[in-house]
């Protein structure tokens, strides 16, 4: 159908749907008046049962750990899909000549390169810190991994594609990605065999407020950090290398 017809049909149905949704939202509690019994139970018991101060982390990796396992596998599959698409494209494209150094260093002045070289270390350290303190302060494996994975773009901006290839070594980080995803499931199975329930927390729980606390929460946090960080590094490297292919095609 033409674009005009499509927009009209969409507009009509959107108005009706919006009206229905607004009417349905009136039976929700008013903003700020949420009274869920499960919430009260979790807030009262999570710190006592799991010795973890950061309650969303405890929920993610222990109380609702099974949902996080599913999300992590979505992440892993998407990264694998992107890599598959790009490697199939590389196989289909004509073989490129040996890449020259021209495209890497032409535009960046010394100041920009020094700045990004320094910033890379800061970002990587901050990512590790956010992930390591996941039981105590806002943060955890997901946030820390995303921050750490973003440092690879700074490496590229500082030193070009070759440095990015060396720093984000493809084989190493894809192996680390797979290790992280596999370990989450393996820990679940292992704790299932040990305690009789999948992802049951059977390691020592530690003292609330210390860095290593929460038992399997901390271990799973570490593995999730490995997986998300390696996934982002591999993903961003694959995308930026596509740009180098673009430069070669233009030459």
């Amino acid at each position, binding site marked *: 159908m033409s674009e005009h017809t499509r927009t009209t049909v969409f507009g009509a149905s959107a108005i009706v749907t919006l009206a229905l949704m607004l009417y349905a939202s009136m039976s929700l509690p008013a903003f700020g008046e949420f009274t869920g019994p499960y919430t009260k139970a979790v807030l009262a018991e999570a710190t006592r049962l799991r010795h973890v101060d950061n309650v969303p982390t405890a929920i993610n990796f222990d109380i609702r750990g099974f949902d996080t396992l599913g999300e992590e596998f979505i992440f892993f599959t998407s990264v694998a899909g992107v890599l598959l698409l790009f490697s199939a494209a590389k196989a289909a494209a004509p073989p490129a000549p040996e890449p020259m150094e021209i495209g890497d260093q032409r535009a960046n002045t010394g100041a920009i390169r020094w700045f990004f070289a320094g910033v890379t270390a800061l970002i990587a350290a901050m990512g590790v810190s956010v992930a390591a303190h996941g039981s105590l302060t806002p943060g955890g494996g997901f946030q820390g991994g995303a921050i750490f994975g973003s440092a690879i773009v700074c490496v590229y901006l500082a030193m070009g594609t070759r440095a990015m290839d060396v720093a984000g070594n493809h084989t190493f980080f894809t192996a680390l990605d797979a290790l992280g995803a596999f370990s989450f499931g393996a820990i679940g199975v292992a704790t299932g065999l040990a305690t009789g329930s999948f992802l049951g927390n059977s390691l020592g729980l530690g003292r609330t407020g210390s860095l290593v606390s929460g038992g399997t929460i901390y271990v799973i946090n570490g593995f999730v950090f490995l997986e998300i960080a390696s996934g982002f590094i591999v993903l961003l490297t694959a995308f*930026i290398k596509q740009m180098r292919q673009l430069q070669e095609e233009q030459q």
Partner: protein
Amino acid sequence: MSLLELVLYVLVAIVGTAVVLTKRPLNQLIVFAAFGLLLSTLFFALHAPDVALSEIAVGTLAVPTIVMVAMMKTGGGV
């Protein structure tokens, strides 16, 4: 509902509309990065620091880089 939350909600609605209504994909990307920043401020105001951290880490570096590379490769956006 305090003034801060009210202002943030209205701004989120306005900037979300702006992302969709902007013309060229390059401009849309810049407005989208601003939308991500505004969303994370809203998440802070709703007492959700974990979520705000996630949104900042992902929405200001990873997603714009990927979208920019895709724009360059497909020749659209300029």
